[in-house]
């Protein structure tokens, strides 16, 4: 060994020692305010200053461990009474009159609105925001929509099911989702019978729930559909029911495996495919890390996920502790979804509204009508959340928040104002209340159902006016000795990146909060 290589080896040893020391410090050192804010913003709905401070003293790995350990599987907000009613559903039968159908449908619409309000309330109140974020993630993965399912109690049942598995086992979640009554209605499973297979569920379970496109054939879909025949629901109780009389007990071949298999066996075959773990991991990456998944990292995490027999916490832990998650260049690269934007704003400004309904309505107007994703692929998310229409709706909402203590009657409140000559009652009430005309209609509610929705929705403005937010008091409560320090602290809490529109010096508190909430960076997490 030449002196030179000895020297080089020593240097190498020294530098790796130093690297280990740095790593060790990162593992035990407090992560600090910015990191804590980042972790909470990505795993929740906009953290409060107190939450960030409490976490800032912890090392990253401890914080991630605690988030996962303390994730709940139930809600703290009591669900609406109809949702946990165990009595018969009594949907109108074939011989029901138009009036009976209409009455039933309108009741379901009303229940659907209560359900949306309840979920928003839970997102605001939960001590476990990660649970609700994951419930929302699975709602957008195992998609069902009340628009087709109609019966709100089934939508609640699906939501509770998704939450109970939200950070549990993906395999168990897949099996539960496949037998979920709302899913059986939404993807026509209940109509899938021997001799007349309906392939809707079989196709989507491969394309959207497990493998992703390109990992199966049309023949696999046809065969799998036969395996799912007979998975149905009891119309009276709304519970899963296997109907052996319409199940196809013949031989099937799915992804190279043959036998007289049932739906559960098909699901296990799908879970055994490496593509499933990669597909789900990629989707998690897009929700938690960045819009551009790193394929090597995805493969690494997917292997851990699959090796753990699909423990969702294993995948999440690996994602949240990946270098990419913490990398500077990935901060502020994700666009907040409408519910994240709305719930996050209320949480960060520490406003506790009496009802979640107006915010569910606002979210629908911004393109995310909870319990009614646009189609089986769910909300596309990412940049698609922001167009001229939805951006103005977001800006109006935070403008209204920041001006809550100004003369409410003069507030500009709606992105889609009513026009002048309104011919009918619904439109007249809208005009006086300034409620967005089609706020609920894009995905959720049409025709006769609209009137009731509008009656509910017109409370939005009234509710928002009641909110008790005072920008001056809020800003004064920030940490710091000088007004400049407080402003700096406010931006460190509210913005994932430095503001694009630095407020001119010397502006009053209200204008400062307003301009921070109007900054394009406020759309990001």
């Amino acid at each position, binding site marked *: 060994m030449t002196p030179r290589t000895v020297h080089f080896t020593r240097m190498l040893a020294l530098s790796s020692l130093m690297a280990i020391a740095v790593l060790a410090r990162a593992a035990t050192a407090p992560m600090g305010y910015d990191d804590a804010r980042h972790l909470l913003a990505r795993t929740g709905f906009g953290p409060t200053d107190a939450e960030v401070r409490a976490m800032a003293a912890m090392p990253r790995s401890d914080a991630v461990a605690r988030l996962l350990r303390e994730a709940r599987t139930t809600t703290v907000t009591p669900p609406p009474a109809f949702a946990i009613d165990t009595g018969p559903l009594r949907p109108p039968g074939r011989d029901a009159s138009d009036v009976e159908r209409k009455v039933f449908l309108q009741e379901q619409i009303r229940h659907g609105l209560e359900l949306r309000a309840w979920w928003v309330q839970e997102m605001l109140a939960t001590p476990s925001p990660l649970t609700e974020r994951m419930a929302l993630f699975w709602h957008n993965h195992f998609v069902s929509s009340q628009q087709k399912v109609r019966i709100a109690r089934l939508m609640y049942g699906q939501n509770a099911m998704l939450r109970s598995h939200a950070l549990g086992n993906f395999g168990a979640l897949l099996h539960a989702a496949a037998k979920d009554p709302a899913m059986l209605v939404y993807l026509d499973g209940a109509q899938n019978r021997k001799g007349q297979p309906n392939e809707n569920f079989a196709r989507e379970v491969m394309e959207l729930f497990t493998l992703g496109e390109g990992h199966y054939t049309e023949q696999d879909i046809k065969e799998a559909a036969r395996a799912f025949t007979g998975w149905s629901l009891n119309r009276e109780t709304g519970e899963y029911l296997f109907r052996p009389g319409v199940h196809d007990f013949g031989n099937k071949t799915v992804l190279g495996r043959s036998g007289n298999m049932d739906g559960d066996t098909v699901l296990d075959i799908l879970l055994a495919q490496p593509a499933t773990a990669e597909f789900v991991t990629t989707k998690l990456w897009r929700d938690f890390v960045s819009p551009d998944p790193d394929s090597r990292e995805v493969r690494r995490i997917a292997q851990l996920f699959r090796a753990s027999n699909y423990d969702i916490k294993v995948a999440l832990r690996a994602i949240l502790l990946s270098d990419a998650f913490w990398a500077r260049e990935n901060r502020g690269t994700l666009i907040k979804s409408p519910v994240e934007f709305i719930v996050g704003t209320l949480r960060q400004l520490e406003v506790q509204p009496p009802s979640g309904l107006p915010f569910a309505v606002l979210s629908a107007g911004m393109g995310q009508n909870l319990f009614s994703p646009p189609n089986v692929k769910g909300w596309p998310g990412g940049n698609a959340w922001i167009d001229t229409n939805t951006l103005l709706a977001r800006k109006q909402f935070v403008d209204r928040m920041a001006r809550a203590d100004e003369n409410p009657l003069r507030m500009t409140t709606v992105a889609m104002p009513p026009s002048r000559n309104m011919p009918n009652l619904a439109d007249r009430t809208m005009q006086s209340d300034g409620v967005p005309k089609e706020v609920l209609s894009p995905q959720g509610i049409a025709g006769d159902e609209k009137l009731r929705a509008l009656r509910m929705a017109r409370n939005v403005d009234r509710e928002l006016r009641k909110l008790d937010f005072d920008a001056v008091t809020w800003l004064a409560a920030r940490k710091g000795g000088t007004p400049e320090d407080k402003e700096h602290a406010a931006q460190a809490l509210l913005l994932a990146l430095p503001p694009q*529109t630095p407020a001119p010096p010397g502006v009053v508190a209200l204008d400062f909060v307003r301009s921070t909430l109007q900054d394009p960076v406020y759309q990001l997490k």
Partner: protein
Amino acid sequence: MNRRNFLRSAAALPLAQAIGGTMATFGTAQVALAAGPAGGNYHRVLILVELKGGNDGLNTVVPYTDPAYYALRPKIAIKRDDVVQLTDRAGLHPSLEPLAALWRERQLAVLQGVGYPEPNLSHFRSIEIWDTASKSAEYLQDGWLTRTFATQPTPRAFAADGVIIGSRDLGPLAGGGTRAIALANTEQFLRIARLAQPLPIGGNPALAHVQKVEADIVQAAAHLDARYKFTTEFPSGNFGNAIRTASQVLANPSGVAVVRVTLSGFDTHSNQVGTQARLLKELANGLLALKSALVELDKWDDTVVLTYAEFGRRPKENISGGTDHGTANVQFALGGRVAGGLYGSAPDIARLSSDGNPSHAVDFRGAYATVLDQWWGVDSRALLGGRFAPVPFLKT
């Protein structure tokens, strides 16, 4: 997308403003100069009229000599004596009488039997298929016009690619990148748009996207106003107001390629007769006012109006005096360069599928191909995912 951004940034702002400023004087030729090198004749306007809920095509263009029609609809059929005769077999619903003059002037094209294979009967899904120009089992994120403008951008000086009037749903303009503005009326949009501010575009892709959309709002607000005073009288009511707003948007010198207005309420499952008569009257009066306003602006020859709906309705009436969701439907095309007449073929109501619906004769993407290939000069093939024969409703 890259090309689009390039074109945008290449157009230096003062130049764009100069072009915008001269358009009022020199008319549409200047806009054509500002367009991309090939295709994209976006000084020609497309006005889409959505008949939301699924208008009943069979009572809109009535096969008034067909006994099968009267047999299927004993309660709601339009009487032979009441139709506005177009040909010896087809007649318009009496509420559409105001369009008869346009038909005689051969500026009204009637497309019959329009639909697509494996029809979906859900409002939401079927309008999504129409708006994205997808196959029945294909889920596309971007609207067909969004894809069009991403491939062949509108001139930078345009106020927007398109303006959506009276609906939050951007429909064919939904999805990434397009400069689409939704408004109910111009003054209110301008008031709200003050929340948007022009900023340099940069940073990560998400931030750049937000800034770009913000800039689109600023751009539209800077180029739209409602100052033009029409001599045309607009009908009262929501649709009349939408038509007035559409006309005001088109009176601005800076241009938009597309305007969409919506007339809602066509989901006539019960007591259809009165409802449809009222809606079609609103439609006819609105279209007539639109034509008058565009003639006033000297733009009628550069306008195609195209109606559409998510689906037609079932030929057999239901027990409630209404009709349920159907398939093949009617579309109208109007404009100074429209070659009036009947296109496609009337749905064969003697041969219905097991769910009681006729099959389509013309794919809806054919009408889109007409707009793309023949109106704007943009190759439709890649945009529509295949070659669809244009419906020849334009004068060549």
